């Protein structure tokens, strides 16, 4: 990722924690979140450049998921505020955040087991008139729209190699397939920015490469991607920018190569014994 326009835009940006970006989509200011005596998140400034792939790394318990939760409205912050695309997002309910175009996935996947894979996808579509109680009985009102939604869902399923599971219950998918479905489902919302919490965990290595290509393709289509990942090869491979958290704070950020060499990052990882990717069912 050395000579695309994105890297050029970020080339002149200083490599220090909390640095301002030329065209930030997400701006986080002074956000803290404590659980009892534990400060899980303490982020002074964090800006995510529009149209980039930003990796959020850090050892277990660094506060990455908690930061995601706060920004996406699934948890509340004790202090601080944050804006998305210039609009205040502080304290907004989770569904409003998603409607604004910031959609997240979960570290522990939340696929809906008793819905089919296709239904999971259809659920995520926006502006379906049939989702209003008053119109739900009048199928002619929403049937046409539904067809368009199915077409879009099928395209995404094809792209994520889930077409063969289309009509199976999502509960029958493997852990890796659930990760894929959750990501495809998030894309059905047509977000401007997607936040992925460990999207590669448990995904079959053969599929990881194509998933990385999808993420890069999304970025090239103009989407902003922020993802948490433990696998350094993945991070180095596709990120335009890397942010490293440790003990709730941002300790380093910069282009992948510079962060890998940053002593603060090495300290953060060596301070605790850790370098394996998270595994889950």
């Amino acid at each position: 990722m050395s000579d695309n326009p994105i890297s050029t835009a970020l080339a002149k940006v200083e490599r220090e924690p909390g640095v301002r970006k030329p065209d930030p989509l997400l701006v986080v200011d002074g956000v803290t979140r404590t659980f009892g005596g534990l400060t899980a998140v303490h982020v002074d400034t964090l800006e995510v450049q529009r149209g980039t792939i930003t990796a959020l790394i850090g050892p277990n318990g660094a506060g990455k998921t908690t930061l995601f939760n706060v920004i996406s409205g699934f948890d509340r912050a004790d202090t601080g505020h944050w804006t998305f695309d210039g609009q205040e997002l502080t304290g907004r309910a989770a569904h409003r955040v998603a409607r604004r175009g910031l959609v997240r996935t979960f570290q522990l996947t939340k696929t809906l087991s008793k819905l089919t894979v296709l239904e999971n996808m259809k659920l995520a579509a926006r502006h379906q008139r049939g989702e209003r109680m008053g119109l739900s009985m009048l199928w002619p009102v929403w049937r046409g729209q539904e067809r368009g939604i199915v077409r879009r869902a099928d395209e995404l399923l094809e792209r994520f190699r889930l077409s063969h599971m289309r009509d199976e219950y999502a509960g029958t998918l493997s852990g890796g397939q659930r990760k894929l479905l959750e990501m495809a489902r998030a894309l059905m919302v047509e977000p401007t920015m997607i936040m992925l919490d460990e999207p590669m965990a448990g995904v079959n290595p053969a599929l990881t490469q194509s998933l990385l290509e999808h993420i890069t393709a999304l970025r090239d289509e103009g989407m902003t991607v922020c993802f948490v990942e433990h696998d350094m090869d993945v991070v180095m491979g596709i990120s335009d920018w890397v942010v490293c958290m440790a003990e709730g704070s941002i300790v380093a950020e910069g282009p992948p190569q510079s962060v890998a060499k940053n002593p603060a990052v090495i300290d953060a990882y060596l301070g605790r014994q850790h370098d394996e990717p998270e595994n889950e069912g």
Partner: protein
Amino acid sequence: MDWEVILSDALRSGIGPIAAVYALAAIGLNLHFGYTGLLNFGQIGFMLVGAYGVAASVSTFGLSLWVGVLIGLGSSVILALLLGLPTLRLRAEYLAIATIAAGEILRLFYRSSWAEPVTGGVFGLQQFADEFFDINPIPRDQYGFWLVNYSSRDLWVLLVAWGLVALFAGVMALMVHSPWGRVIRSIREDEDAVRSLGKSVYAYKMQSLVFGGAIGSLAGMMLAIQNQSVNPDTYNPVETFFLYTLLVLGGAGRMLGPVIGSILFWAILSFFDSALRQAISAGYISSDVLSAAEIGAARFALVGLGLMLLMIFRPQGIFGSRREMLLDVR
């Protein structure tokens, strides 16, 4: 033992007005519990406000029965909002606690001497449904088959009650299989997933609570109308648990679950009742073991035993899908 009598008793109950009323109330509860995952333990409260909406409108305020129906429906909407507004943002248990309390508080309130001028207190209200029976189009005669007989009045009640059941079972089928139903079913499984996709879970839960509660109030109205009487003690919290019993029996979250569940529940209950009665009078069961007065309790014990067997051998209920249930375990 006269098996013909026993079986015809069971059949009469299974297709009777009470079975229809419970089926209707359970259709509402099925939306709450079966599809949305809301723990409403006070469906009887919705039935009560519906029944008294009709009865008090006519008996106390001299309004038309049909205005009373609207008032009953309105009361159920208000009750749903009062219960839902403070609790639906919280964990599921809060709605459960609020509804179980509301059911009992409503009963005590409606029977209190303070409310007596409107509700008739412990005496209840009677003879408010003449308008309903006046429009009975069925000619005066005896109708029936086998040992099951109906007057034209009974038949009219049955027709309307089962008509409502069919109507709302149909409406529910359409709604549950619509995009709206898709959101509702997803909320039952994982609220956070639904939120993350931009849907207001709170609004959908509220809609479910209001609509299912309104159906419950219609069931209450039907119960009051067919008896031409309301009494607060009919609306006991335990009735909600009978609704849950028949819902689990038929299969929660299934279209026909509440209907088949209610028919079977009342048929089985009546079967045991009739069979025990005959066995005692025929001397098969000594009156030292079980007296006629204890039959009422004994049949519920047998229903409980039956439910336990059902849970062991067919935990998803009669209409439930085993495949779907097993997905929970994974």
